């Protein structure tokens, strides 16, 4: 299980533009960090680089376990992290239940967490609806369900709370707090503060 994420001297570019240079930070088990910065500062790109979808220009992204041994990148990315971006990967024509079951089993290879996810995010009444019929907030709850449906240590979240109402922001905050208490890690790109205590990383400042 990933117990720490180390980022050293990371430089990311998109096209000709350098987003940031020489970013250093470490995320340890039980920690959450709120990633802030202006639009276009590179928050989403950083999350995607950690998930292995963008190749960094320079620097290193290293995952290590509780004994400080380095975990193979492919192993870490394929089995131990969640990336939840603006696009949630839900197929609008399919029933919510199929999507939840597919996402949880594809990422987690078990049935165990699905019932818990349905309960935590109160999805029971939505399961038979097609995804296209869900509101933005309901859709986000369904997307968040995979975090519980398939337990993985590192959560990379991009504006996770934006479409949610006040009640669900608190509920998802509680969900995050439980994840951290269990030794998980959260790196979330946000504009509004998360409802849990977090460290902060301002990408505007490292430019």
């Amino acid at each position, binding site marked *: 299980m990933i117990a720490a994420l180390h980022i050293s001297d990371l430089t990311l570019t998109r096209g000709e533009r350098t987003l940031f240079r020489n970013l250093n930070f470490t995320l340890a088990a039980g920690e959450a960090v709120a990633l802030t910065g202006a639009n276009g500062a590179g928050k989403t790109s950083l999350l*995607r680089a950690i*998930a*292995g*979808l*963008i*190749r960094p220009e320079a620097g290193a992204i290293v995952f290590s376990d509780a004994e400080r041994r380095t975990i193979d990148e*492919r192993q870490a*990315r*394929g*089995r131990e*992290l*969640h*990336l939840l*971006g*603006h*696009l*949630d*990967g*839900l*197929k*609008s*024509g399919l029933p919510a239940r*199929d999507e939840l079951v*597919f*996402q949880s*089993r*594809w*990422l987690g*290879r078990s049935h165990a967490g699905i019932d818990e996810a349905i309960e935590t995010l109160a999805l029971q009444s939505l399961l038979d609806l097609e995804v296209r019929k869900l509101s933005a907030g309901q859709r986000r709850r369904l997307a968040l369900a995979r975090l519980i449906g398939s337990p993985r240590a590192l959560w990379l979240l991009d504006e996770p709370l934006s479409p949610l109402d006040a009640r669900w922001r608190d509920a998802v905050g509680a969900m995050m707090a439980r994840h951290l208490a269990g030794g998980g890690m959260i790196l979330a790109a946000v504009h509004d503060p998360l409802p849990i205590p977090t460290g902060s990383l301002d990408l505007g400042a490292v430019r």
Partner: protein
Amino acid sequence: MSAAGVLFRRELALTWGGGGGPLLACGFFACLTTVVPLAAGGDPAVLKPVAAGIAWLALALASLLSLERLFERDLEDGALDLLATGPLSLEMVFAIKAISQWLATGLPLALTAPVAALALGQPVELAPLTVLSALIGGLGFAFTGALGAALALGAKRGGLLIAVVVLPLFIPPVVFGSGALDRAAAGLSPLSALALLTAYVLFAVIIAPLAGAAAIRSAQG
């Protein structure tokens, strides 16, 4: 169930269900092979010698239809990111998607092909060979077609681009496939042409996932 099984079931459900699926391909195939006698005249002396060639041309064109949605849909809704953070390599994901494309398009087309060929005047005895060669060729169409779909990811009007990229790659299976039928019609053994067809398809099955996965990574990055 293994991750490969989970993904395979889902892809099959999507290719069979969403975006027209097998009915669309078979319908297009039937229309195309019906138009030929109307355009070229119904004279059996004209149609019979070209029946195999027309059937294979129609197979190739019908195989193009649903390619555009194969990866584009997943790129648009973010499912490609989900697939990339799953337990399987992108090469495996590509292969699973191509195989489900084959089962949803190639297989129904292979079953429709002998009917169309028969209508164009092909002898009845060639029907089993038509199905067999269309099945093998369809696997090649699915893998090379999926490669074209991956290369065209993110491009505007990707469907046309896919056709231009992929049709040249469809030429060898069309040549070997219709060649096998022609040889059988002339009373010769079709095995040499079938062997070449199979060799090309196996080559595509190995190479396309490697190239396709690289194309997907570049579209994601």
